[in-house]
């Protein structure tokens, strides 16, 4: 995309190597649940610690 942008895959692989977790790369990620993201509409968080 740009010469100024780091390759995310390079960074991921370097980090996995540093953590000695390269085997994790081959794990298949399940399809993501986006419903807690923007796709789910407005979100509501109840901060029980602040309730009186």
């Amino acid at each position, binding site marked *: *995309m740009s010469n100024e942008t780091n*390759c995310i*895959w*390079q960074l991921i*692989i370097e980090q996995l190597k540093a953590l000695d977790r*390269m085997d994790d*790369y*081959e794990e*298949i*990620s399940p*399809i*993501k649940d*986006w419903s807690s993201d923007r796709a789910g509409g407005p979100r509501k968080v109840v901060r029980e610690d602040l309730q009186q």
Partner: protein
Amino acid sequence: MKTKTPSRLEKILAAGHLAVTSECGPPRGSDPEVIVKKAELIRDYVDAVNITDNQTSVTRMCSLAACIRLKLMGLDPVLQMVTRDRNRIALQSDILGAASFDIYNILCLSGDHQSFGDCSQGQNVHDIDSMQLAQTVRRMRDEGKFLGGDDIKRPPRMFVGAAANPFADPFEIRVPRLAKKIAAGAEFIQTQCIYNLDKFEEWMKMVVDRGLHEKVSILAGMTPMKSAGMARYMKNKVPGMDVPDEVVKRLADTPKEKQSEEGINICVEAIQRLKEVEGVRGFHVMAIEWEEKVSEIVERAGLYPRPAVA
């Protein structure tokens, strides 16, 4: 070998033949004749024809409509589908639409970033990625289920493919990435265009060492160069492309009017060499806007006539 779909490509591979596929880019307009003419040029020389899905993020006629054209002409289309432009509802819906026309092959891709194309201000989707798209098609086909869990009436019967680039960085994940695509459900692979034969053979050796060639049919990607200028452009401007200096030099040392012929020679020689490489199950000949040369390449490479399969 038993096949899982009525795909001609799958049958050719199952019968142990070297497969030949090619691709057609749809037009930047609605004229169906563009696709029909390209398809007529190559139909007798290939087993299946890929239709690209808004390649390089430039808006074109949709792959699905162009695949239907090919199907109606009696060809075996490969529906290319990128996850850049569609969420999981649209992807599953288009897969069913394709299946309703008995399109039996799909190539699961993520797609080039939109900043490369004519809609750089647009949003991309990437609800799921290319691996998950392969998983999705396999689930729809093998389990007859939507992602949401409901049953599909008349599930799609598609031979599932994915792309591989043996040359991209970081090199250490090139083979693991292939393994991951196979685990996700890919049954055939079409590779990036190969010019650096030594490096491709090195990659294939690692693939064979892990036994991956027995789990997936790898078709080597071939794109003939039209000129030394094209070779320089591919070398310097196209990400993930590995064009050795000697290829550029060989074209540059050829008189201009003979360069396209030399480009074909290089392509034919590469196919002849890679035919002998363990694990190579066929060739994906991408003659970009040069479809009239596919017949010559396939014939000279000794891959014509194409075998008949029941």
